[in-house]
């Protein structure tokens, strides 16, 4: 005879988070195209940008000096973008499978659901980005891990931003159905020009620089350039990024809960279609 393990109803359950991670893991390993897709684009990106870096470093004294800024930027951008996609695609899998109603009717709480999506984004990111860094090392001699401890600060800030965007985009899909799916794929690109991935913030018009500094990734990419070009780690930039990330994350979680409530008022949780 089976029994139900009793959890205090308000507690976050690691068992339920594990169950959801297992669900996405089963899905991932059941489909080689899903696995290939995780590796394919990052590999293509690094090869393309790596050769470009090689070419312009031969032609430009600045890039010869600032070796690796392009490749480093590509890898960090991929952490940001793939982190969000890893989160959002796992969420979309529930919409595509029409499984959201089952989950919402189970004891799984929204915070547990979101935590499992974050863990999955890390797993998917590792599958995509680790081969990418190895390619950068073997083909272009750029050792991403030689960045050392600052890399942890860069990574944490980028992954927090990616989760905030992922939580917000997932909320929009939850409320509006799969008709809003394109937001998941494109939202991060709105950040791209303002986050100053491949160029310094000073390149932007003065008024736009204020906007750029409201985005945590701007601090990370500036910090990366400072480290690779001037060999100076700007801890102040990382702290600012962390503060803005905390605000952004809290706001995105609040918006997600509001959109979930709105979906319940609207009756869209059982449908999930267009």
């Amino acid at each position, binding site marked *: 005879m089976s029994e*139900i393990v009793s959890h205090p109803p308000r507690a976050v359950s690691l*068992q339920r988070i594990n169950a*959801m991670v297992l669900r996405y893991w089963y899905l991932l390993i059941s489909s080689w195209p899903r696995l290939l897709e995780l590796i394919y684009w990052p590999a293509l990106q690094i090869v393309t940008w790596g050769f470009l870096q090689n070419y312009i470093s031969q032609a430009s004294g600045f890039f010869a000096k600032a070796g690796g800024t392009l490749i480093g930027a590509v890898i960090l951008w991929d952490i940001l973008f793939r982190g969000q996609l890893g989160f959002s695609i796992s969420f979309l899998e529930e919409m595509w499978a029409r499984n959201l109603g089952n989950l919402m*009717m189970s004891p799984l709480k929204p915070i547990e659901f979101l935590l499992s999506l974050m863990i999955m984004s890390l797993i998917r990111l590792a599958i995509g980005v680790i081969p990418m860094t190895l390619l950068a090392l073997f083909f272009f001699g750029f050792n991403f891990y030689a960045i050392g401890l600052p890399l942890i600060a860069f990574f944490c800030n980028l992954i927090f931003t990616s989760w905030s965007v992922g939580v917000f985009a997932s909320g929009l899909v939850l409320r509006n159905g799969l008709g809003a799916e394109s937001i998941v794929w494109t939202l991060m690109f709105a950040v791209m020009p303002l986050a100053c991935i491949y160029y310094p913030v000073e390149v932007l018009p003065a008024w736009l620089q204020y906007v750029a500094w409201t985005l945590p990734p701007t601090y990370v990419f500036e910090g990366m350039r400072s480290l690779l070009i001037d060999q100076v780690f700007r801890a102040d930039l990382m702290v600012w990024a962390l503060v803005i990330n905390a605000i952004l994350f809290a706001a995105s979680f609040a918006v997600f809960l509001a959109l979930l409530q709105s979906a319940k008022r609207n009756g869209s949780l059982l449908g999930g279609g267009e």
Partner: protein
Amino acid sequence: MQQRETGQGQAPAANQAPAVDQGGSAAIEVAHLVKVYKTTRAVDDISFRIARGSITGLLGGNGAGKTTTIAMIMGLVLPTSGSVSVLGAKIPEQRYDVLGRMNFESPYVDMPMRLTVRQNLTIFGRLYAVKHLRERIDQLAADLDLTEFLDRSNGKLSAGQKTRVALAKALINEPDLLLLDEPTASLDPDTADWVRQHLETYRKTHNATILLASHNMLEVERLCDRVIIMKRGKIEDDDSPEGIMARYNRDTLEEVFLDVARGRVREDTP
């Protein structure tokens, strides 16, 4: 108001719960429930109590408000006004206190197609914190004739097999309250009969409460102690199947359904 406190039909059969909750601790209590979607009044001031251990059928045509009512009971749709209480917990405020004791099956949701039956049941078993999960899955698979499909992906099953898997998921936590929306839709008569038989057995062995929405009148006649007929968001009638058929002077619920759907006058209407 349309709340019924006592049954008007025949006495319920032996081993069955009373057709209508007599005022004790009800499994479900719905009071003045209203749901308005923009300009559509999907559910319009309905009230009822469902006794523990009973099987109640929600009958009605398309758009009668059955699915919206069940979704509000589950807390997946927020009411515009009114209140819902399930197993003593206020919905939606206290739903996490009782979700582990409920489960549901609906044609509006699917089990993930790429995962095998065993993987799906394992995940839902863990979500419901079922102990001795492996044994529970094996037992359900044996009960629902799924043993040979346990390691097949859900997407490769027939409609009947998928319905049985969905039922296995709905029973994984041995719920006290089972909410079923069209549990035998799109099944062949043999499989549908088989599912009904299983639900009857489950109710008897677990003293579970079952609320099911259905278009299948034979199913409701056979399974339910009580029938709530809905039309345009309101409760049109509420009694045991026998009581309703007697009042409409009809031999089958299907004939009653057509009377209600087409607005024919009831026998006891002055």
